[in-house]
């Protein structure tokens, strides 16, 4: 249920406020893009029950994205709305990490993408909810309960696919091989994140890296899957250097707003 709260903007310098805006947009874009990808499954899932599960996760992420966009609009203070921020920014302005914009592929790719993100997302939210920014803490407090469910769901699927049939194992290994290289960006701070880490607004990724690694290792072990080592990590999404997939995704997402500028829907 959508509630309207008064949004509290922290009393910080213009510079930090701008950094905070960039970071909140990064969080918003990340949730939106992953929600969008998951929503592409709707009506095409492997079984009805899982179609419902994926739509639920997508809806959670969409709700989270909207909360961040609303906060970003407030931080920006230029009268733009959540929809302006989601529908009228171009690919180079989007700040989501590369992982979440990767195409759905088969169910194994979707699950691996989801699990790698969920493991990070869950541990990030645990920190944000205890952080100094009231608004982020409030959003994180609500979202962490959802993320706890997401990571349980995706972890169980990693285990089923890894320790299922020969085919599922082959497919999940192929997906890990394709997507692991995007996992590093999640905890590699951008310049904005570094600055905010110093100001205390963004958690120290080095500190949560251990928890994430342990979480992933535990699930992979149960799935009898080896954890990849020494993989070259791609990055760029958080600074606007995306893969080619994002442009197409946004073309679809933004189609109506771009075709009929300025209308109400």
């Amino acid at each position, binding site marked *: 249920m959508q509630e309207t709260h008064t949004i509290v903007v922290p009393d910080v310098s213009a510079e930090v406020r701008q950094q905070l805006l960039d970071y909140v947009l990064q969080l918003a874009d990340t949730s*939106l893009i992953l929600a*969008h990808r998951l*929503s*592409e499954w*709707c*009506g*095409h*899932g*492997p*079984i*009805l*029950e*899982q*179609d*419902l599960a994926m*739509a*639920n996760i*997508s*809806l959670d992420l*969409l*709700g989270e*994205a*909207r909360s961040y*966009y609303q906060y970003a609009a407030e931080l920006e203070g230029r009268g733009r709305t*959540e*929809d302006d921020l*989601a*529908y009228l920014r171009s690919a180079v302005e989007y700040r989501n990490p590369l992982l979440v914009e990767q195409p759905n592929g*088969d*169910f194994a790719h979707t699950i691996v993408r989801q699990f790698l993100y969920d493991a990070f997302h869950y541990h990030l939210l645990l920190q944000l909810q205890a952080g100094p920014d009231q608004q982020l803490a409030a959003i994180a407090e609500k979202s962490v309960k959802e993320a706890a469910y997401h990571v349980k769901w995706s972890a169980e699927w990693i*285990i*089923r*696919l890894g*320790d*299922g*049939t020969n*085919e*599922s194992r082959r*497919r999940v290994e192929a997906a890990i091989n394709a997507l692991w290289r995007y996992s590093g960006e999640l905890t590699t701070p951008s310049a904005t994140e570094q600055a905010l880490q110093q100001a205390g607004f963004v958690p120290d990724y080095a500190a949560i890296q251990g928890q994430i690694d342990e979480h992933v290792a535990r699930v992979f072990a149960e799935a009898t899957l080896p954890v990849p080592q020494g993989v070259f990590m791609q990055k760029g999404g958080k600074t606007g250097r995306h893969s080619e997939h994002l442009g197409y995704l946004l073309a*679809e*997402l933004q*189609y*109506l*707003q771009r075709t*009929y500028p300025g*209308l*109400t*829907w």
Partner: protein
Amino acid sequence: METAELTQEEQFQARIDADVRIEPKDWMPEAYRKTLIRQISQHAHSELVGMLPEGNWITRAPSLKRKSILLAKVQDEAGHGLYLYSAAETLGASRDQMLADLHSGKAKYSSIFNYPTLSWADMGTIGWLVDGAAILNQVPLCRTSYGPYARAMVRVCKEESFHQRQGFEIMQTLCEGAPAQKQMAQEALNRWWWPTLMMFGPKDADSPNTEQSMKWRIKRFTNDELRQKFVDMMVPQAEFLGLTVPDDKLKWNETKQGYDFGDVDWAEFWDVVKGNGPCSRERLQARVQAHEDGAWVREAALAHAEKRRQRAETVAA
């Protein structure tokens, strides 16, 4: 007592006439069971295939709010399909078999979903018109004679109530918006009006199953009764929106206190029923592909569950 002399079939009919619900393990005529399996599975398939035309616009919804609403709505349809498959399963049909019948073309689903969704206004029209028609069909089913079907329908109707409203809200926003939006709304109504009238099925005279279904209280109104009710309900709503219903013959009839309206193009109706709708092949193909692409996933989950069960047994032993 006289009941002792009644045949099983007569006793069954007596219970129906007394409005006593029939439950899964109760004796029932084979034809009643078959009719129900056919009707419930057809209904379930309609929910499942019905996800596709609206699913077509989830990724293009024009605002974050609309995107959330549309996704939640299409997800509800998956839920409704699931409730209905479950109801049919209480009669001894397996979901796998029902899906196989859908995929082979043996089982039917509502023809309305074989039409394309071409603009955002189609999301409004489907919610407002198509769900409006569906609700008229479905509300009486909450009192249908078979218990599990009636209970599934209670749940469906409860959840559907937001579907029609969100559709009307989309239409209203478009009609009160820019000329291009209003035009989009009118154009969508032009395309969906007649197919929606077809949703109530053939004319009573051409509906051979109606009489028996009414007697068994599986069905509680005839096709023509519901169609009339629908037109009477929708015309004032279209007027409120400032939209024109695409029917020259539409006219208020003071004597019958209802609208007279033109005849549905029954040739088109039967063409679509036979699988020649504009999107019939695409819809079925999408369902078959989702099922086939998901086979290895379903199999992996079973294999893993079996491994776990065996391990638990080893530990226990």
